[in-house]
């Protein structure tokens, strides 16, 4: 028995013919449209089932491309805000924190500092104390010569 029904049900573009010189396989454009409609399924009204869907979906692609760098910037700003808030509570100016920690040899990044300020507050307090001690050191000792600041806890004797 020869099964032909499967072949007959395959969707082909009407320009294609398997009998002529070379077959010009072009898949049915319905699949390309289907991909677009799938992505635009949550749009409102005519924007999801007419050719406008392609227009507005292209726009969403440009938003995605632009958003990649925006997301990084926004995340960094959020971490900065959180670190600043946590340092303010401990009477330390977070503006000097990065410099002080680098001088002290603590190379934690913004993401980790913001996370430990939430989940590990005691560790964050100790890190702030390290930064504050370094900031209060005289310039000839490698510090920044700032006035008294920071949480004022004893960290260095325990290290």
């Amino acid at each position, binding site marked *: 028995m020869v099964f032909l029904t499967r072949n007959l049900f395959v969707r082909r573009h009407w320009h294609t013919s398997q009998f002529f010189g070379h077959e010009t396989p072009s898949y049915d454009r319905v699949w390309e449209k289907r991909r677009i409609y*799938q992505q635009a399924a949550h749009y409102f009204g005519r924007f999801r089932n007419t050719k406008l869907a392609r227009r507005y979906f292209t726009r969403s692609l440009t938003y995605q491309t632009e958003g990649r760098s925006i997301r990084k910037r926004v995340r960094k700003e959020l971490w900065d805000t959180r670190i600043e808030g946590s340092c303010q509570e401990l009477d330390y100016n977070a503006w000097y924190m990065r410099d002080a920690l680098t001088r002290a040899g603590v190379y934690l990044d913004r993401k980790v500092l913001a996370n430990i300020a939430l989940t590990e507050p005691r560790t964050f307090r100790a890190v702030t104390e390290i930064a504050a001690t370094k900031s209060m050191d005289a310039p000839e000792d490698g510090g920044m010569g700032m006035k008294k600041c920071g949480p004022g806890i004893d960290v260095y004797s325990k290290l």
Partner: protein
Amino acid sequence: MTSRGLMLSKTFISQNALMNNGIGRYVPQLARVTIKFCKEHGSSQGVRRYIEEEIVDFARKNPATVVYLKPRRHRSPVLVAEFLNGQTYYQSLHMLGSDTVSGFMEIYRGHSGVVYSEQGKYTYSDHPSIQGYWNPTTNKEPASALYKFPRHTSLPQEPTATEMLQQLFNSQQNSDGGAEHFSQGEKDRLETRKQGES
């Protein structure tokens, strides 16, 4: 692409392995498979071929799964997969070939039943916080709960403008170096003389 367009929900991992399935013992999660198809219509052709050739093998290899076949006239073919967690999936097999049908059966055979969704994070931890999450009282002294207001704080405060002027004046008076800055007329005016003396 966006997950929203694919109607994907967002979840966070809640366990390392659901009920530890596979660690030790593996329990197949597919409980029941029902295939509804039409005996005559062309849209069920692939399903009919699959039933002729491959379904008995599938049922033999998966004793934990029950396979039901439901011929329904003038209906489009559908696969209904039911899982142990109660989830039901409807998969249309309309106009699909028999190898695609067997592909779908294979997908559902190994599926856990949990709805396919986008992961918010790829990390998971049973104890995200060791020292305890921050709360507004974490960095405060416990004695501050018993403070009575008004309170005289011993915080170092900067001197006010009035105090600074007074300090300046006193230092000038004491050192008498301020006398150099005054002109003769000012010195005369500032001179303190008791009544009667010259």
